[in-house]
């Protein structure tokens, strides 16, 4: 059984006055195994964000199913969705979404506090995580005192402190310079090496080339996928760029 299974996912947006709908996702199926590092690539408007929102239980699909650990997410009741999300999913956003009023420590603690955990337990979880993310010295600083890379690593800490089954990252390098991006992606790789499952959505080739598998999304459908295998990051970069060139120049899919 896969950790995450997406089967025949459809999403149609209808305008408020009815009329014709826009089909953001047509028929998307894929699976993510535990311990994978998967990237979903696509242009703006390819349905990336819609897909991620559905995976995050922020939005409901029009058709098809999403199974996490074999449990159908459509079966989760509306009022349990937040708790479900908190316990199973970790999020990293493009613009960090840290709270200015909290220190780095408290930003990371936030989901655990919401889950009603005690301070001792939170602290025990925090220290190794902060060590791994290289933000141990920054715990008492406020977000406005941090660089972009430090902010994003804080956000990763916040996403991981609940020990989620899967880490969902939406354009995590979108607001970072190349150096900070690179360091964040190395953090992802090492987290993945320790067994953390990661699903990242991006349109950055550099970001995608760090992952183990890349799925290409076009016009609401999976168009192609690439396994990294034993390739280096440089080779992967070239491969992905080539695929994108082919994809955007309009050839038919062969996935």
């Amino acid at each position, binding site marked *: 059984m896969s950790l995450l299974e997406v089967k025949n996912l459809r999403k149609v947006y209808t305008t408020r006055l009815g009329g014709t709908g826009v089909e953001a996702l047509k028929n998307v199926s894929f699976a993510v195994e535990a311990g994978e590092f998967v990237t979903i690539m696509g242009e703006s408007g390819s349905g990336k964000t819609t897909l991620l929102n559905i995976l995050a239980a*922020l939005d409901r699909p029009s058709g098809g199913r999403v199974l996490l650990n074999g449990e159908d997410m459509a079966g989760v009741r509306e*009022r349990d969705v*937040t*708790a479900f*999300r*908190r316990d199973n999913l970790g*999020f990293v*956003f493009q613009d960090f*979404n*840290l*709270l*200015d*009023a*909290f220190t780095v420590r*408290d930003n990371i*603690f*936030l*989901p655990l*506090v*919401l*889950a*009603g955990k*005690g*301070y001792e337990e*939170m602290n025990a979880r925090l220290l190794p995580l902060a060590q791994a993310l290289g933000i141990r010295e920054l715990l008492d600083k*406020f*977000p*406005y005192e941090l660089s972009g890379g430090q902010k994003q690593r804080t956000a990763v800490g*916040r996403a991981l402190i*609940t020990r989620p089954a899967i880490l969902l990252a939406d354009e995590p390098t979108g607001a970072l310079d190349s150096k900070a991006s690179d360091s964040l992606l190395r953090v992802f790789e090492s987290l993945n090496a320790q067994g953390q499952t990661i699903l990242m959505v991006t349109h950055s080739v550099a970001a995608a080339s760090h992952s183990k598998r890349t799925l290409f999304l076009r016009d609401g459908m999976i168009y192609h996928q690439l396994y990294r295998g034993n390739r280096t990051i440089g080779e992967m970069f070239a491969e992905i760029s080539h695929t994108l060139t082919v994809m955007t120049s309009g050839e038919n899919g062969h996935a």
Partner: protein
Amino acid sequence: MRKVGFYPRLAIRSLRLNGKFYLPYLLSGIVSAAMLYDILFLNMNRGIYQMKGVNAVQGLLGFGAMVVAIFSFALLCYTNGFLMKRRQKELGLYNILGMEKRHMARLLFWETVCSALICVAGGLVLGVLLSKLFLLLLCAVVGMEVPFGFEVPAAAVVYTVAAFGGIFLLNYLLNIVRLNKVKPIELLKGTESGEREPRTKWLLAVFGLLTMGAGYGISLTVSDPVTAMVLFFLAVILVIVGTYCLFTAGSIALLKALRKNKTYYYRTRHFTAVSGMLHRMKRNAAGLATICILSTMVLITVSTTLCLYMGVNEILDRMYCRDVQTYVNHGAPEDLPKVKALYERKAAELGVKMEDFAALCFYAPATEYANNRADIEPYLERADGADVVGDPADGPLRVYVGCNLAPNADASLFAASVAVGTSQLELSSSWSFTDDCRAGRADFWASLGGFFFIGLFLGSLFLMAAVLIIYYKQISEGYEDARSFVIMQQVGMTQAEVKSSIRSQISLVFFLPLVAAACHTAGAFPMTKKIMLLFGLTNTGLFLLCSLGTFLLFALVYYGIYRLTAREYYRIVRR
């Protein structure tokens, strides 16, 4: 070529676009202009000039007009500053689109002209419409006949226009100064820049505690009414300073201490509330302190004046023993028959019938201000017909003669002729007075009524200011918090948790000033009670009742405002 009237039209458009912020500003401008006009109208109304007992009221009204003008100025400056802060982004955009600062200054000029026109014109119209109502209210409270006719005193109009013109001109100049200080990139960022966490200012907190303590201490320890009156303003200033210090520094110290307590802080309910409060205290503490002080002002003004007004009969009853009365201080026993004879002669001359005639000499301590009923009645009872009461060891001798008159008799004529008569008598002391107590009563009644009227008038102005500040605070916080609440939901806060967290934050921010105001009013109670003694009001029960009643009514209004603004806040945050 630029079209004629580009800036005026742009100004009107931007006023309309920012309606949510400008409407309350303009409304409060209109209302304060109307209030200024009305109080000036009452002060200058020729109809009431000709009435009795009006001098005291007119002095009060003049004082009230000054308070209204100064207060309107402070209020509109505060609101204007708030509005400009909110609009920085818009102005920054104009700047980037190629509008120079002098163009923006022109835009701001037209905006100021528009708001000034709306406020002054609206205020005058509203003021004229309400003037008769206020006149009726004043006459009812003061117990005067309502003068006929309807007038619009030109001077009142001119003063109102001048005062508000000045206020808006000053606001415009302040805006220009503000505009020149900022850089375009800052204009664009506007309110969104990260706020540094406030540092704990222990010194300020301790200072606040000391001043507040001193203020309360004065109120609680002061023993005699005259000292209370003298020290009242000192105590008020101490408490105001203390309130500002404690709200700004004390609240931060308290919140930081709460944050240090890990088992308390890391709970869902406290976590967001404490950090959120801490984050916003720096800017909002002053606003909260202002709300607290305004609330206290409303409570004290209205409760004291209401109590005096309610207790007026009791005060009058204690004040005057007879309708017409004469005292000779440091007199001699042989003065008594002379004054007695004078009363009888004058009564016969004027053809009035004296009732409850009382005449006696008594020895009383020199410090005792012995011409109230409460002072004289016991001596009258002790005398029981005798001419002299008491012991020379008690103090100087006073001669008292007084009588009541039939309701239709002319008391003032009688009192005047008695007064002329006493000056012709050869008394042992020249220190003698004759009171026309009916006129005195009417005067006193009028001035207490005037007090009450001014109390209500200013109380409602302060209330309006408090409402306005609360409204703007909630709105601006709503915009600031909206993003935080989105993030919290993404991180795993349920909708219900968001709601309860918002509720606990808002209610804390809202009811803190109210509770503090209640404390201040209670703390001031011993002192205000003593000051009421100066007015002759000894009924503590009545005062307590009036204070409680005022507080309940105020709390009710306050709760209404809370509900209204909380709804607006939800609407902004929920987006």
